[in-house]
């Protein structure tokens, strides 16, 4: 039922995005180990879908990878020199109390884009995500779908080589979900590494190039999407997939 709309990674290799490596990464808080120790590498074409039940550590893994949280042991490294440009789209978009355009200009200003080109770049990003008409609308009165598109436009304007998305569609209606997924594909096709958490199996099938399956704070399985969905190796992944399909 889902094989129709599986979009397996189109093997268009533009400039390969930097790869991400977790080396014995652990995260503990208040004496409890919440994540790891885990080692894995995201170096395939992607997009990488991070899946797993609630509390599996998906969001934690994303935050550790993005640098919002520092691992308490081990390290997160990137291929290439320095920290690549990256952006993150959150489950609930965090937007400033200003117009949609001003939100983008702020992000560009923070990233030291020269003042003269900010407005043009911001308008371009708004246009790309179908928000041109809302440029002067206060960001916080936009609809849920528009807010998430604005968050994506903001990420786009920063031209990241890695984009993290944390359950970006969990609060959206089907039309808005479709738009977000299209945007994710577009990022991917432009050569941005996508690392996205979701617990929607159908969405994962539509988008995934590879799947990183977490349970209990550690990686249970990391396989190409077709293998993961057809013949998951780990018991937890089998249970997760069949559970979802039965439900």
């Amino acid at each position, binding site marked *: 039922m889902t094989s129709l709309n599986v979009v397996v990674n189109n093997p268009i290799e533009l400039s390969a995005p930097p790869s991400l490596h977790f080396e014995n990464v652990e995260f503990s808080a208040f004496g409890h180990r919440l994540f790891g120790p885990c080692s894995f590498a995201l170096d395939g074409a992607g997009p990488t879908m991070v899946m797993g039940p609630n509390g599996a550590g998906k969001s934690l893994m994303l935050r550790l990878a993005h640098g919002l949280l520092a691992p308490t042991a081990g390290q997160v490294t990137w291929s290439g020199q320095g920290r690549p440009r990256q*952006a993150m789209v959150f489950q609930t978009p965090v937007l400033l109390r200003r117009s949609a355009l001003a939100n983008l200009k702020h992000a560009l200003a923070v*990233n030291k884009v020269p003042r003269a080109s900010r407005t043009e770049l911001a308008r371009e990003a708004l246009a790309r995500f179908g928000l041109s008409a809302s440029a002067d609308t*206060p960001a*916080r009165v936009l609809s849920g779908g528009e807010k998430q598109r604005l968050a994506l436009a903001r990420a786009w304007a920063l031209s990241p080589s890695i984009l993290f998305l944390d359950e970006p569609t969990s609060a959206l209606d089907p039309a808005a979900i479709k738009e977000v997924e299209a945007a994710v594909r577009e990022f991917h096709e432009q050569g941005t590494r996508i690392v996205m958490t979701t617990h929607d199996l159908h969405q994962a099938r539509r988008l995934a190039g590879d799947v990183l399956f977490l349970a209990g704070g550690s990686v249970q399985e990391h396989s190409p999407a077709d293998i993961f969905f057809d013949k998951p190796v780990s018991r937890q992944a089998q249970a997760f997939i069949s559970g979802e399909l039965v439900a």
Partner: protein
Amino acid sequence: MEENAFYVALSLLVNFDASLYQIVTLSLQVSLLAVLIAAILGFPLGAAVALWQFPGRGGVIVALNALMGLPPVVAGLGVYLLLSRAGPLGEWGLLFTPTAMVIAQVVLVLPILAALSRQKVEELLGEYQEQFVSLGMSRARMMPTLLWDARFALLTVLLAGFGRASAEVGAVMMVGGNIDGVTRVMTTAIVLETSKGALPLALGLGIVLLTLVMAINATAYILSETAKRRMG
């Protein structure tokens, strides 16, 4: 009829009583300037306390909160000692000038603006922090963004500061001296007229003061409500 306070207030106003207008103008000048200076110092101070973790931060927060209730006469006494001839800043000859009154009111208003803006900025930071870190913003870079995004809340904070400044009498009395035509403001004039027994005039001045404060608050309220509704 002439003894009615409302009548006195009204006649002072409609007759453009020169000394009344001078008193009102000076009151506004002193308090608005004090609030402006306190805002320039206090908002960044409040935001800094919200943003940075440092040893003794808890103590600073407690001190700022406590100083919101600083008795005006104590602030007045402190500024008096500082500016009096024998004091460390005595050479400047500022005692019994409007400048001294501004300084005293800055001392009173600054803790209010800093303490309340600290709260507002901290709330906002809780909401924005992950996005800010994701954008690679330093704490120093977060400050202007947070202060701007808290602007509607800070307008209310500003009003609280202005209310404190325009209403207090102890500090301006002590460092200003209530000199007719030089440092006499509404509150000190009311104290003087009351002690002279000129109650209708005192009440009239009181009504003018109250009306002014109401007008300023109403304007700010309407401004911020309209803006809030527009910005979501």
